[in-house]
């Protein structure tokens, strides 16, 4: 993930904002519902992460494009309606294209609507920025979310045969806590917030 020689050097910074150790699942502990429920295997985590990424990018795009016309009073219902419609579309496309994987995580795709990460990015970033930065922001946060979801899934899948608790819902809490602690360690060593 190198911000290579693009003319706009801030593009890389936008993309990296939500990636790495600042991914909101670890830094802000938001959007945890799918993290805990679906991260039982690498493939399931990756699949739900990709679906979330698609929703996040497209919702950021639409919200940033429509924000100038939407008055504050209607902001929340309008954004929720858009996100709901996008999740429905992604859910259908997912079922049509990746049927096998859908069998594993299909139950959780509609729940992406409730992932506050998506509304949070739309509200706090996309609504006040242009279409391109909003897209990059969604891409970065989405990739960070995938990394966490798939990583947690891989970890639980690897530990489950020997360590029963890793496969159980409680195990997701324990491992997430371990990852949060690791993040604190790294961030403090670096001396940056």
């Amino acid at each position, binding site marked *: 993930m190198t911000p290579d020689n693009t003319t706009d050097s801030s593009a890389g910074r936008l993309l990296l904002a939500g990636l790495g150790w600042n991914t909101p699942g670890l830094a802000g502990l938001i959007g945890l519902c799918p993290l805990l429920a679906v991260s*039982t295997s690498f493939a399931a985590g990756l699949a739900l992460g990709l679906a979330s990424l698609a929703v996040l990018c497209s919702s950021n795009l639409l919200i940033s494009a429509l924000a100038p016309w939407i*008055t504050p009073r*209607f902001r929340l219902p309008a954004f929720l*309606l858009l996100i709901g*419609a996008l999740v*429905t*579309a992604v859910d259908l496309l997912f079922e049509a294209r990746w049927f096998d994987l859908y069998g594993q995580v299909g139950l959780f795709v509609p729940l992406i609507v409730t992932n506050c990460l998506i509304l949070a990015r739309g509200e706090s970033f996309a609504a006040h920025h242009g279409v391109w930065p909003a897209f990059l922001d969604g891409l970065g946060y989405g990739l960070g979310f995938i990394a966490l979801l798939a990583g947690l899934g891989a970890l639980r*899948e690897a530990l489950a045969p020997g360590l029963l608790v*890793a*496969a159980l819902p409680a195990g997701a809490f324990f491992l997430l806590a371990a990852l949060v602690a690791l993040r604190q360690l790294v961030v403090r060593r670096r001396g940056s917030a």
Partner: protein
Amino acid sequence: MNSGSREEPLIRHRAAGPRNLAALAVVLLLAVILIGGSWQSTRQRIADNAARQIVAQISLVLPGTLYDNEPNKDTVLKDTGGGQPLPIYRARRNGSPVAAVLTVSAPDGYVGPIRLLVGIAADGRVLGVLITAHQETPGIGAAIATEPPTWLTGFTGRSLTDPPTARWNLRTDGGDFDAIAGATVSSRATVAGVRTAVHYFATHRDEIFSTPSSPAATR
């Protein structure tokens, strides 16, 4: 509570301006287009996927040389004991019944019901067992559904009288079937599911094959 006090409403309602309504209408329209468009463009493929999956699953529990019809289109819905009607796919050769695939929901899995397909030959012997849906613990109970399904092949060739009904259980319960190590509950539920299918087939054989195909169950 002071019942006499009057409270200021938390939100003051102002009349919604035409601009607001127009913006909301645009968002609504966009949502309708998004949902309608994706539904319209995917529904055929989703239906095909489901049909293809059923055909693939049937071919895993029935030897393909056995039949010459399309069992996924020769289907009846029967309640095999779980309280809900589930599809039975009938395999025929030259029009005469050779086997059936029963869908069973074994209610007592570790986490929830375990969904099974059990292929049974006309003489009542099991041809193959496939687990199509379960929520058992990954790495533990989920071992019942691992690929290749070595453990499930232990049912092949068995029937209602082999072993006798009393021994259609796990070895730990005084039966003939080994449990998967560490997955006793999931194994027990699976054995019970196969037993249900075999028993239902043996007691309803003629009814299964003579009931006209139900279009509701056909994919």
